[in-house]
């Protein structure tokens, strides 16, 4: 693994992740969902596991935004629970939430802080 200071780990390359969509990367034993929100020029990273029914699928979900502040979110493909990409809070079921990770892009490489 290519590691920078502060636990930034090379996750993948920019063109590995489809525009306005997500992909899953493997870091050690962990599965992390990386989202390339081209429309907003932003990147996000969260756990890949959907806490609703424990399915490893969030990276395959559709992203979008909601509300007046255009909160970025991802919808789980299974039962369409949606999660804020900023806070990880589930927007459709107060009891659920997911982990989010720091993410940054340099020279075509995507780094995640864990």
């Amino acid at each position, binding site marked *: 693994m290519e590691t920078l200071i502060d636990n930034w780990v090379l*996750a*993948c390359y920019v063109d*590995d*992740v*489809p*525009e*306005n*969509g*997500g*992909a*899953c*990367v*493997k870091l050690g034993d962990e*599965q992390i969902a*990386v989202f390339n*929100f081209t*429309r*907003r020029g932003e990147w996000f990273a969260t756990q890949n596991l959907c*806490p609703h*029914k*424990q*399915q*490893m*699928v969030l990276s*395959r*979900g*559709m*992203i*979008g*935004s*909601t*509300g007046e502040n*255009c909160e*970025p*979110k991802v*919808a789980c*493909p*299974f039962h*369409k629970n*949606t999660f804020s990409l900023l806070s990880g809070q589930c927007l*459709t*079921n*107060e*009891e659920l939430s997911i982990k989010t990770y720091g993410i940054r892009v340099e020279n075509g490489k995507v780094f995640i802080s864990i």
Partner: protein
Amino acid sequence: MIKPTIIVVGNGMVGYKFCEKLVSKSSGFNIIVFGEEPRQAYDRVHLSEYFNGKSADDLSMSTREWYDEQGIMLRLGDPVQEINRTTKTVHSLLGVSIQYDYLVLATGSSAFVPDIPGIEKDGVFVYRTIEDLELIKAYAANAKTGAVMGGGLLGLEAAKALIDLGIEDTHVIEFAPRLMPRQIDSAGSGMLQSKLKELGLNVHLNKSTSYIGGTHKIDALHFNDESLLPVDMLVISAGIRPRDEIAKLAGLQVGTRGGIMVNDKMQTSDESIFAIGECALYEGMIYGLVAPGYEMADIVVSQLTGGSKLFYPYDMSTKLKLIGVDVASFGDAFITEPDCRTIVFEDTHKGIYKRINITIDGQYLLGGILIGDADAYNMLLQTVNNKLVLPPNPEDLILGSRGGAESEGAGIMSLPDDALICSCEAVNKATICSSVTDLGITDINGIKKCTKAGTGCGGCVPLVKDLIAGTMKANGQYIKNVLCEHFEYSRQELYDLVKINNIKNYDLVLDHFGHGDGCEVCKPAVASILSSLWNDVIVKQDTIQDSNDRFLANIQKGGTYSVVPRIPGGEITPDKLIVIGQVAKQYGLYTKITGGQRIDLFGAHLNDLPDIWEQLIEAGFESGHAYGKALRTVKSCVGSTWCRFGLHDSVSFAIEIEDRYKGIRAPHKLKGGVSGCIRECAEAKSKDFGVIATEKGWNLYVCGNGGSKPQHAELFATDIDKETLVKYLDRFLMFYIKTAEPLSRTATWLNKMDGGLAYLKNVVINDSLGICGQLEEEMQALVNTYHCEWKEVIEDPALRKRFTHFVNAPEEKDPSVQFEPMREQVKAKW
């Protein structure tokens, strides 16, 4: 400051609700829960759905993590055995002793098992926990006949469950002279009994069982009247017995017939000990329903957090669920003349019985019974509970509201503000209306989230929806079918806009006609419009597709995918069958013949999909679009080529039609069928379009479907030739594609269409809108641009690369996917 410790004994529905309510009000307590069952609290009310495919997880009321997050210590499988009131300590089975400041007993009830000789035999069950259901299910696999002892609410539910488990010969034994003796009168019971008979349930009234026959396992029920009924299994549903054993042992006051006595604060005879739910005896009454239990939980939370809420006798109105016959009773169902006036409506032909009891002066509704049609239940219950003044002709309430929804809607808005709408979560009308008016919430999910109304048994959801619509109307808000928060247009409007402006990708559609970044509702809806208009390869815009469309396969539990090659009309060569077998073997796939006359291969890893399809395409297969809102199958019967009754060659015609419309995307999926004669072996009338051979040609039927709301297709044209039929189909399908709401099947589309079938015929057959030429052209354009999307993928390395689980380790498969063996194949383990 040290937090006071609350120990909750029992992690059932009410025990859980108590925890939920307490932590939402205060974080000032240290909460410890002891549960006897091995799993955390689940929805016992919907227990029977366990037989209809719901898993224990689905029924669970929360997750293990939830307890952790709330700092609640949950000890499952560890019942409390003793309470020491002097030292304020509980002792558990596994040897734990903990001191409490307050103790909450939520131990519920167990099934009452009468003392009948032979009751201990194998094959005799109760119906209360998931474990009970597991035992029943296993035993039922080898049983042919079954009986339920007890014809009450629960007994009938259990009987229906036995039928659903495949016990065709199921009996209900009731001691009383009528069914559901606590809820309905004998006239209602008679009507119910005949309805149940249609469902295959045999009811025996006035029967008391003297002993249960059989050597080790049950083989018959013997009755006091010397008669007997041979059965392979028995489910006892003869009432409930409150679990008061540890309370009794600790010297708390209990009722003579069981139950822990409580006052209106839910305190037992020891003021630091409370009892709630089905174990609590309030004013001589055990409430065997969940709503009063939740109310009790609320009272204790209020008492502990400085409030002063008290419990009042609770409404016991009920509506029977699941059985397939509507049954409801509400208010005072049994009061008779001369204490009231009773109005009865009976229709033996349709099996409807309705009775309402009103005050002598005709002003108020007191209660009633509904059998066969309980649509009016919610509104009638509200009328009783809120003492609404009755209309001049109270019989209108039950005589089938021909005026329809209109008058009922007005009724709902006239309810007082404090009318209880959701009794599970105690949400009143004012709370719902103000969420609409003040918080701008306009859909049921929003209301569920912000008020919790409708999240319990779900029975109030139609009422809540009516309230939302009513409030919006009253506020002068225009209710328009917009796509979602990002588009102020209906699907049809957007379809026309995209077409006229010749726009071909989602981002441009959003830039031109929407705002924000889109979402999981508008993305697939627009994707479907783009596809219906331009028929481009959908995976080129993969991230706006619903998950199944994005990976051209249906995602399943555990995250694997299925592979369904097209087998037009269900006709397949031996060579192709062999290839399917080989591919399935090579990739370890579970294979099954589907209900659509083709073969589904389940359990494929995302990474393997392109290789699997490469082999299938090599052998001449194409995508079956089982994942798309597109044409699925055109089912056929063998027809005149082999069948002695066949009038025409239904297989050839089915293949022709399937090949014509394959790959075409629509607002929802499309299915067709072609039968060779009126015997209808292809079930064409249960499809979006069905064709049946006649002496003179073919009959065309449209807008049918199976699924959750089955509806037969309606006759559209008779004795037409093939060419005319295809022409009508082209027009019909294209008109549907252009005008239906997202995710609405053809039947729903027709049901909502102004003018209905007559209008549709006028448009498609008589060209009343003058658009038929255009419809045909548009359809022909889609037919001409057909492509197998899997072929496009396997031939394009860039598209192929997208089928990986880890982008940084493309060779690796998802390690969380696991299988276990089942009948010489595999199934997903998760």
